[in-house]
């Protein structure tokens, strides 16, 4: 039985036995190279669920959204009228790590989520695919094993799937779930985590001025749509500082320093909390290279605190805990 079929059966079971109120998963998109997040509440709709390398965004964000909206709706109710909501979620490695972060940060309780773990071989980067198609419109797209074929007005072409996988996926260390309530499918073979910091190493070798220039150039592309922040499961502040107006921290026009201020604040807020799912990069309409900076923070988190975001429930994010033997030399010798 295909993994998709098993997933659909699991969803029917969970929904009809009322173990969950909703299953968050992916459905086929309206464009040949897209799958879209979907929310299944009725067991009869289970046939919509798909699982393929076009399933890109990290679904943990939606789990948080649903549970927070539910919590808010319960506030004004008498205790005896309050209901519990359980969200089922189709989760690959990075999604489960985001769920771990939510749990560590006490966003909701473990029994409010039901994790349907799935193995992952990486997802297709829409930007890489567009580049492979030379910017021509893709009118059909199919994946057979490790090859991807696509059709443009110039004809049909076949390329290795790996050549269009997202950067995050190519060097992913946790492509299988780190926690789950049920696993659907056999574990996927490892990706190539040894190369995960190659890009950061090259960046660190540059001079301070070169690094700043690179950052400033990338930020010039940013139009501050905040898609990166909004898709990020770890960006869940109720009101982001960029949108506060009393006081106003960041201006509303297209001033470079305002964009830099937003990005710097967001990046630092991600220290120890970014799982490198690549969703922010995937949804950015302008192709801003956010990953390099996020990966640098991740590398520092590992080197200084032996911490990898969302890897284990019991290991708290480094900036939320203090221990007497924390390293601190870098504070004095940057």
């Amino acid at each position: 039985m295909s993994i998709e079929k098993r997933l659909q059966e699991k969803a029917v079971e969970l929904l009809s036995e009322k173990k969950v109120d909703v299953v968050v998963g992916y459905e086929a998109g309206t464009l040949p190279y897209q799958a879209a997040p979907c929310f299944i509440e009725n067991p009869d709709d289970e046939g919509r669920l798909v699982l393929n390398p076009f399933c890109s965004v990290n679904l943990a964000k939606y789990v948080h959204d649903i549970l927070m909206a539910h919590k808010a709706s319960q506030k004004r109710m008498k205790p005896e009228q309050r209901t519990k909501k359980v969200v089922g979620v189709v989760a690959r490695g990075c999604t489960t790590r985001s769920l771990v972060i939510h749990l560590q940060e006490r966003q909701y309780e473990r029994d409010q989520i039901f994790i349907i773990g799935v193995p992952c071989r990486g997802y297709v980067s829409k930007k890489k695919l567009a580049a492979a198609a030379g910017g021509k419109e893709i009118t059909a797209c199919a994946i057979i094993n490790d090859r991807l074929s696509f059709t443009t007005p110039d004809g049909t072409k076949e390329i290795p799937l790996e050549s269009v996988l997202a950067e995050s996926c190519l060097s992913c260390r946790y492509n299988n779930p780190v926690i789950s309530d049920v696993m659907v499918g056999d574990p996927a073979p490892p990706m190539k985590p040894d190369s995960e910091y190659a890009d950061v190493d090259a960046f660190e070798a540059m001079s301070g001025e070169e690094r700043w220039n690179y950052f400033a150039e990338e930020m010039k592309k940013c139009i501050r749509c905040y898609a990166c922040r909004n898709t990020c499961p770890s960006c869940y502040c109720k009101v982001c500082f960029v949108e506060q107006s009393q006081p106003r921290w960041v201006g509303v026009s297209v001033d470079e320093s305002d964009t830099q201020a937003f990005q710097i604040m967001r990046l630092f807020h991600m220290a120890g909390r970014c799982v490198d799912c690549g969703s922010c990069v995937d949804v950015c309409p302008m192709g801003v290279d956010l990953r390099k900076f996020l990966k640098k923070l991740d590398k520092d988190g590992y080197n200084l605190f032996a911490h990898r975001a969302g890897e284990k429930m019991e290991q708290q994010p480094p900036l939320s805990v203090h221990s007497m033997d924390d390293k601190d030399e870098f504070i004095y010798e940057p």
Partner: protein
Amino acid sequence: MEKKVIKKDALAGIVKKLAGQMPVYAPVQDQDNVLFKILEQGMEPMLDFGNTRNAPKNCFFPQAETMLKYFRTERGRELAGVVEGAPEAVLFGVRPCDARSFILLDYVFDDPKYKDTYYMERRRKTAIVTLACVHPPSTTCFCTSVGGHPMSSEGADIVLADLGDRYLAESLTDKGAAILKKFGDLANADDAALAKKKELSEKSEKEIKSIIPGNDIKPWLDANFDNPFWDTIHKSCLACGTCTYLCPTCHCFDITDEVKRDGGRRIRSWDSCMSWLFTQETSGHNPRTSQKERWRQRLLHKFRYFVDNYHAIACVGCGRCVQYCPVNIDIRKIVTDISKL
């Protein structure tokens, strides 16, 4: 008005020469995107590109602009308005859907009662040169379902049509005729050219792949403000506003004061119904409490309120929101789904 023909390989030169005389906005490659930009020395206009990433509305209605400045002086407060006279300009290579968007934007900014001087100044001085779609550039184009046509000349001052071996250039307004003169000495169009255009136009219309019932859903929208259907479209939305920022017809804006020490400026910047700050009141209350209400607003504004106010759908079928929504929320599907309810 004038009907001329231009040799295939002469057009780029004409556009570049024009760019030496006045600001010419044209589609150019800018890193990964094709954008409308003012042509500068050494830049190549793209003559056969489908829809640019950004809509050309930016040229008249920029993402952020200063409306006025103010200063505190010893004599009290002083104001400086900053509507600068705009130069005569050309907006070249606009697709028919985008050209139509200017007619829709004019309804809003050039209203008999309210004239938007900022928009109007640039709009009046700019001639629009449309490049007709002899083939629809993408499968997501649905102009014919919302009142447009791939070879339409609506909104254009000049229309160019690629006949294969040459371009047919027709001026439609005085502004267009004046610019066409600047194109240089051109041969008059013969009957064969006009016949060829007609043939291409019929063919192109048949090549449109996306057909949606754009005109049929108004009665349902009028009657179903509270329908449970509205619970089904917004859930995956990231509220990024990509759909509204890239949309040639979206025109909501916000006004903010930025004050630094003894002076400040009043800025108008794009707003988006997709953002939670949209219609947020000073008290902290927002009549649109969630993304559901915001998404309903987006659809109703385009397919109901605008139709009530101006008898036109506020969507020109360019397909940008369909192609660039990061989570694939597809307005074509929503309209089709509504028509089946």
